[in-house]
């Protein structure tokens, strides 16, 4: 039986943001999953579909292991991409399972222990042959360098004042301090930002995201059942995924359109088609911010800012709570915690439930979430 029902997020769960957790990655995922299921007003045995990213969870917390630990019998199982694009694009798969009547309630989950794992965020790069044989030996061995090169080229083409990048870091710190639940709890002024050490020019320490241990989960079901839950349902208005003919080896050096991320055009087209709504209708956006420059580039890729203007947009305060487009309203990867963007989905749901506390965007109706896992990209439009 297939339907065209809307699907909704009905439950969310997240472990407390932490640089290092005393719990294992598997324990963190179990905690987040149970919290999301309870938040949806369900019991674990009500879950019959699961979606995760294909790489990180499949290796560290496989769906069969989690199912066994939660007492879940699955009639739908799927995975896509890795990291952020997996967590943000998951509703694309969940929708298929739910609309085709293959399952009733889908659990999406993600977690990382890069805060406590010795290789941290750099270890997984070894899966790329060019990284091992070529890039690591010459010292091109970490994300700040890849994004430092992007930022330096952007500066050459469009101009980029230090304060333009800083405006993202400062604004997101404001959100995190107000929320009071993130890894960063003390304010960051522009002067303090400018005084932090350069890591990979022009990226400073505060341009780089946090490193964290933690997990999140969320539950999806069809509109008809969503009304039974304890919370206001949050609708999946559109979801899109894109990945162009660029490999993980080539993405940071060979892409002809160097200053845009592959997959964004396809993801945007899919979302605008689903939603019959342009992205510009969004009241807020949770944008994958592994670095300030990543957030800046995506605002332009998504057409939310013209090319060469996103830094000025941020510097004018437009990404702050009283700006034209509040961005990363929990503090994002820069100030809340770094679960590769999975928490961006959770924050968007909080906003659309009206549960975002001191960071609540007034009259929030439509929110965007992006997941950047180069060369993959996922985009989600949610509404209440």
């Amino acid at each position, binding site marked *: 039986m297939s339907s065209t029902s809307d699907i909704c997020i009905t439950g969310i769960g997240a472990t407390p943001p932490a640089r290092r957790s005393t719990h294992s990655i598997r324990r963190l995922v179990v905690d987040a999953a149970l919290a999301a299921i309870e938040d949806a007003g369900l019991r674990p045995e009500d879950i019959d579909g699961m979606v995760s990213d294909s790489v990180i969870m499949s290796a560290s917390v496989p769906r069969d292991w989690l199912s066994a630990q939660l007492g879940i019998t699955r009639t739908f199982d799927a995975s896509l991409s890795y990291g952020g694009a997996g967590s943000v694009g998951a509703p694309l798969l969940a929708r298929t399972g739910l609309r085709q009547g293959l399952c009733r309630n889908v659990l999406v989950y993600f977690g990382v222990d890069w805060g406590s794992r010795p290789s941290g965020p750099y270890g997984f790069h070894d899966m790329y042959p060019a990284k091992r044989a*070529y890039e690591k030996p010459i010292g091109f061995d970490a994300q*700040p360098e890849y994004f430092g090169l*992007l930022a330096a080229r952007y500066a050459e083409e469009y101009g980029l004042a230090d304060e333009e990048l800083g405006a993202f870091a400062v604004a997101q710190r404001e959100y995190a301090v107000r929320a009071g639940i993130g890894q960063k709890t003390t304010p960051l002024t522009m002067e303090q930002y400018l005084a932090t050490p350069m890591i990979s*020019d022009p990226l400073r320490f505060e341009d780089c995201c946090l490193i964290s241990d933690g997990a999140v989960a969320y539950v999806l079901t069809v509109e008809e059942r969503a009304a039974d839950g304890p919370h206001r349902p949050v609708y999946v208005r559109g979801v899109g995924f894109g990945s162009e003919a660029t490999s993980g080896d080539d993405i940071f050096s060979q892409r002809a359109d160097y200053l845009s991320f592959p997959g964004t055009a396809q993801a945007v087209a899919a979302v605008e088609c689903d939603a019959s709504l342009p992205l510009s209708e969004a009241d807020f956006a949770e944008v994958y911010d592994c670095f300030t420059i990543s957030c800046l580039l995506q605002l332009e890729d998504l057409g939310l800012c013209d090319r060469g203007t996103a830094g000025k947009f941020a510097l004018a305060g437009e990404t702050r709570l009283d700006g034209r487009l509040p961005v990363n309203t929990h503090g994002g990867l820069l100030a809340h915690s770094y679960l590769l963007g999975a928490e961006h989905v959770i924050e968007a749901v909080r906003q659309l439930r009206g549960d975002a506390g001191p960071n609540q965007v007034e009259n929030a109706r439509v929110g965007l979430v992006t997941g950047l896992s180069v060369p993959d990209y996922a985009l989600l439009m949610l509404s209440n």
Partner: protein
Amino acid sequence: MSLQETAEAPVDSFGQFFREGGEGTVALPHCQDCDRHHWYPMERCPHCFSQRLAWGSVSGRATVYSVTTVRYAFTAANRGRTPYGIALVTFDDVPDVRMVCRTGACEEGSDVAVGDAVMVSVTADATDQDTGMVTCAPLPRNAGSGAHGER
């Protein structure tokens, strides 16, 4: 541009690149069908998807497309070696191929800037010839062969 093709060498791994490269000479995978070079090594030409690939040499003369100064050692191998520069360069012979190179650096930053003419050098590792080091060094400005970036 002069090309010395070596059709027998595997074009999908790095060994030949490090063994054939040298000071001012860079071996790049070259497509026998569309006559274009590419980087990194791979099974099929990314431009026309031909599998008739061979190694061809180009001049290491290049232009800096972007550059960053790395001031933090992310991996053990770079402890005590910061700051160093990482440049993304485009070859003057084949401007649509970019290559990541190590550059020198002082406290003020990398010794090359965007738009600078540089010479790329490839050195195989003494014990493992399948890996090595790729550097670029500034050329005197008037020695550049009308070097230009992609825009």
